[in-house]
């Protein structure tokens, strides 16, 4: 077959397919009649082969690209992503998929927890021994801890109270989620960036607590940290685990190629970090409204312990029961290469 003959005999098919594609416009195949749809499915594979043949015959680039473009447009029409329903997917994600996902990736979170608490303990001991070193760990907010007279739990709540509650809750929420997203994103440095975020936050907390303890205000400190802090720190540590998951997948790819490993790691990690958003929302609301409230210090600490326990129960217990085989569609996380957290 000569190129000229090829063009001449195949041209009607290309032009017909082009017409059909133009008819669908931006609304997809549903505007086509049944007959046209059959035509589309019949024409597309033939034109896809034509695109390859046009390359073989070395037709001029304009023609090659035109055939190629028609084939790609048809491919895009026929292999379209199925629309997922947002609400059921979200419900399923938070009710079963996320806790399972967490339990699959817990070793990374444990690593993140260890790093945070070791650095926190280090800073705590340092400031206990050398109180003036507080300035190394906490640059700002020192007016809150300044003054030798010390501050009661009531004083500290008073400071919280002066700020308008709703904007503060929103601001803290937003800030903390951004920290979590960054802890995830900077995991792409092989985990080093995530470790940095964990170390900075860990030492800050340790130094903060040590400083209040030095001023005999340990109780005030705990009463104002725990209500929101337990949930908040849990969520940050999970985000840290997500960053480490992605970082280690890049640093130690194992049997996969580095790129494939990174993709699998990023997929695991992004869902691990996205699932923390509700925890931050709840923590932010507590920090805005409960922490500055007039309830007693004991009650505030109780709030922190209860939310912490509830979160832990959610992560460890939900989605344990296996769904009946074949029931429901695969969740949003399912479908990727399944790697257990232990072996990479």
């Amino acid at each position: 077959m000569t190129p000229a003959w090829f063009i001449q005999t195949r041209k009607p098919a290309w032009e017909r397919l082009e017409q059909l594609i133009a008819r669908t416009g931006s609304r997809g195949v549903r505007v086509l009649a049944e007959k046209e749809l059959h035509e589309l499915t019949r024409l597309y594979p033939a034109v896809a082969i034509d695109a390859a043949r046009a390359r073989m015959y070395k037709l001029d680039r304009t023609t090659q690209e035109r055939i190629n473009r028609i084939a790609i447009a048809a491919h895009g029409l026929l292999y379209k992503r199925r629309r997922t329903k947002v609400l059921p997917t979200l419900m399923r994600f938070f009710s079963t998929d996320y806790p399972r996902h967490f339990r699959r990736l817990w070793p990374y979170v444990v690593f993140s927890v260890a790093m945070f608490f070791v650095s926190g303990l280090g800073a705590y001991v340092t400031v206990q021994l050398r109180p003036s070193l507080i300035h190394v760990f906490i640059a700002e907010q020192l007016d809150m801890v300044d003054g030798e007279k010390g501050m009661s739990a009531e004083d500290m709540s008073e400071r919280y109270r002066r700020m308008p509650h709703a904007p503060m809750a929103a601001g803290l929420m937003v800030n903390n989620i951004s920290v979590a997203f960054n802890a995830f994103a900077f995991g792409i440095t092989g985990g080093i960036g995530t470790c940095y975020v964990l170390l900075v936050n860990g030492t800050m907390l340790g130094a903060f607590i040590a400083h209040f303890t030095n001023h005999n205000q340990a109780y005030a400190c705990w009463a104002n940290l725990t209500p929101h802090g337990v949930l908040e720190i849990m969520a940050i540590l999970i985000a840290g685990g997500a960053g480490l998951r992605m970082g280690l997948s890049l640093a130690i790819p194992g049997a996969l190629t580095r790129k494939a490993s990174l993709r699998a790691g990023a997929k695991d990690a992004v869902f691990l970090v996205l699932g923390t958003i509700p925890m931050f929302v709840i923590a932010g609301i507590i920090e805005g409204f409960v922490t500055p409230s007039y309830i007693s210090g004991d009650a505030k600490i109780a709030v922190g312990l209860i939310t912490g326990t509830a979160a832990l129960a959610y992560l460890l217990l939900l989605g344990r029961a296996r769904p009946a085989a074949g029931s429901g569609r695969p969740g949003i996380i399912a479908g990727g290469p399944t790697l257990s957290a232990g072996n990479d």
Partner: protein
Amino acid sequence: MLDYDLIETPENVELERRLAGIGSRFLAGLLDNLVLLAAYIVLFLLFLAAWGVDILDEDKIIGAASTVVVAFLILVFFIVYWGYFVFFELRGNGRTLGKKHMKIRVVRVGGGPITFTDVAIRNLLRPVDGFGFYGIAGLFMFFSKKAQRLGDMAAGTVVITEQDRDYSARANKRLAATWEAEITPEALRTTGLTPREYNILRNYWARRSQFTEEARQRVLPRLLGPILERTGHQLEGQSLEALEEYVRGFVSKGARAEQEETKEEQQQSDQQ
């Protein structure tokens, strides 16, 4: 850097897609960020209006109604900041407003439309890629085979261009060689040329006015040389005008043959 990303279709045929260059991607990003900037300015003005003018007065207690508005605005800012790219890339099947303008699109490597997972990964990694005015992104795009930034690599996406490539800066679109100007077997027989030669001469003839005389002088002997040699004509010492006369001869002969052929076909179909 490769120019193409190949899609392996389920039919086992490879289709090629042209990758978008760093320049068009940067411009698309710039446009998107201008849209974002406009949104931030509007939000900030609303914020000032809700908070009141005495924003610097620490002791000013703002009203309960406006605190809710301020809180709401903070949340909206956050959603716009992290959600703009995710939302528009998902909605536009890989095209944000800026990408739409530049005619580029995010797709999965090796074919298929992007999913929520891809979009979330590539856009949550923006803080890293965006370091130093997207310097990190530029660096990785420059050195990666498929012009991928870090977010693209982690998500397994590439950005392709859907612009029609213009092969000559001032190409006359009507005359550009497409299959509209097909070569018929009849034309080849009459002129005694190969399809390639015939195509070259016809393109030359159609576009000769776009080149300087000097360029034509340089190019034409190379195009015409093998043809004249085969038909037993003399190439050396001929003026540009004489050479172009040959070209005109071939092209008009071919065109006449084509016309006659289509006339015959029409007559045949009329008879039927």
